[in-house]
């Protein structure tokens, strides 16, 4: 597989949220606006990129039986770095994302790529995979956040589309589930067209 294909598979074909259904908790929890979705997506991309890099470098040093705890420690260290950096430099976004930043540790996507990809491939492929999958995740979160923000508040990244109140339900919890449901269905259709 070429590196370009390796990078781009995360967007439509193997999108972590729309197709693999991984990392749904942050995907539903923080996407009240496109900006929050993008912030969460980029934070996860950083963790995924770094953990894939480290895991692929040290994969031969870790005995097979203790690999899962070892991966968890690597991932948790990068999550703690992200947590502290965001608290210091982006306090607004940090408050909006709240609990979901420490919870990047248990995002099945990060663990899944370490276990399924970085453990078996060379460093370059692993880094490209981490970056592609992470940006695919950020793409999905931004789209879902954008849909909810436009329908719920009539805005996107601060640009206002219409006056007055939107459908408030899309900013609240039920809108997250329903919005994601229809986006997955849409992605299924697009995927079929491409094939």
């Amino acid at each position, binding site marked *: 597989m070429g590196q370009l294909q390796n990078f781009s598979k995360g967007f439509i074909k193997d999108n972590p949220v729309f197709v693999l*259904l*991984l990392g*749904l*908790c*942050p995907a*539903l*929890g923080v996407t009240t606006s496109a900006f929050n979705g993008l912030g969460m997506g980029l934070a996860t991309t950083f963790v995924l990129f770094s953990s894939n890099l480290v895991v692929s470098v040290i994969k031969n040093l870790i005995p097979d039986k203790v690999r*899962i*705890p070892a991966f*968890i*420690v690597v991932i*948790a*260290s990068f*999550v*703690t770095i992200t*947590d*502290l950096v965001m608290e210091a430099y982006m306090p607004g976004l940090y408050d909006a994302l709240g*609990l979901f930043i*420490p*919870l990047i*540790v*248990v*995002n*099945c996507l990060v*663990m899944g790529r370490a276990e399924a990809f970085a453990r078996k491939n060379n460093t370059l492929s692993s880094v490209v995979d981490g970056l592609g999958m992470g940006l695919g995740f950020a793409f999905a979160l931004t789209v879902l956040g954008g849909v909810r923000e436009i329908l719920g508040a009539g805005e996107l990244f601060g640009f206002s589309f219409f006056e007055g109140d939107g459908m408030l*339900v899309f900013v*609240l*919890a*039920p*809108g*997250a*589930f*329903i919005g*994601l*449901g*229809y986006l*997955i*269905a*849409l992605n*299924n*259709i697009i995927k079929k067209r491409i094939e």
Partner: protein
Amino acid sequence: MEYFVIIIGAVFVNNIVLAQFLGICPYLGVSARVSTSIGMSGAVMFVMTLATLVTFLIFNYILVPLDITYLQTISYILVVASLVQMVEIILKKVSPALYQALGIFLPLIVTNCAILGVTILAVREDHGFHLLEAVVFAIGHALGFALTIILFAGIREHLDMMDVPKGMRGAPAALVVAGILALAFMGFAGLV
């Protein structure tokens, strides 16, 4: 009375799945049958209560006195992971019947963000919980998880027999159903 308020708040008002979006993976993954969702709820309740008890003690008696609370994430995930392993080994020896029932769900729980989420929430300063309150808080959230996943499994068993449009089959339809359930649970907002 105070414990009652904590439980009602955790089960209905701040429902862990439908209001706080934690534990979505098992919620969608093991809710195809009512029987498996009951097994999963049992395992979650067991681990969540134990994990909150242990992490609460670690946070207040080790991390806070040594002023290393920034190690919270790393220490908590290690506690949860090793606790699950330990529970699995002990159950296998002590109660093979319970192990049979919960066994396959236990490894899945390590990456269940509901567990880590509740253990972190239980030591948040704005609650100011003491030990017993924190444990009740965990039990309440586990009950909330059990309620929603069993309700959802019951609906999904019927959904299988319905004529759903092709593109919506599987996950999309399940998510829309979850959205409608969340809408129903919004009726409890402001109760406590």
